[in-house]
């Protein structure tokens, strides 16, 4: 299945891309997706995760068509 990953703000700059499509097996968690997408990069501390525009934990299982976003702490207002 195909999953869309998005990166924002300093994390986007750090990783060097704003989004990517990842091919993954069904039943994979977000933590595993990160490792597939960024094999040389441990998941950075302080990073927030959203699935389909909702905050979720790294242990969440993803499904076909999900959009997963990674970003630093927010500074709204």
């Amino acid at each position, binding site marked *: 299945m195909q999953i869309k990953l998005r990166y924002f703000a*300093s994390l986007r700059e750090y990783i060097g891309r704003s989004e990517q499509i990842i091919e993954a097996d069904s039943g994979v968690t977000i933590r595993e997706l990160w490792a597939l997408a960024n094999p040389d990069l441990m998941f950075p501390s302080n990073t927030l995760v*959203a699935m389909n*525009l909702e905050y979720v934990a790294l242990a969440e299982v993803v499904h076909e068509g999900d959009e997963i976003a990674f970003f630093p*702490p927010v*500074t709204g207002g």
Partner: protein
Amino acid sequence: MLIKIAEQPFDPLRELQDYQDRNAGMSGKYGATSIFIGTMRDFNDGDVVSGMLLEYYPGMTEKCIAEAVGEAQERWSILECLVVHRVGEVYPNQPIVLVSVWTGHRGDAFDACRFIMETLKSTAPFWKKEIIDSNNVEGGEKGSFEPMRGERWVTGNSNGYARNNNG
């Protein structure tokens, strides 16, 4: 209830006037309006800041703000609510955020306005990158947000994200 993401500078007082004009049905019904306006300052942590880039996550940002407003509506008695938030290049003295709540009584207005602002601040995805004018930085000219020395991501916990990140 109206939530707006503004890609261009906005005038909070005009937004308030327009919103009240468009919601004339609440005339005579509201006794209290609590308004918060966040405005960009020209300094932060002792540095002169000449501008910033405010990034957001289209879709999720609006959703988070709507959830904050929805929760406020469950907890307090609210007649109307307006939230406007800037994104893009922002310069000192420009408004960043407007939250306004119209209620029957002032306790509800104060509580709900502050709740929405605090919830927005902690949950809605916005990130700001400041352009710093400091002695040891050549960059920082207004209007340029290209990568250069003198930029600083300002994060929710007041630490630069990249600095915490050991890969």
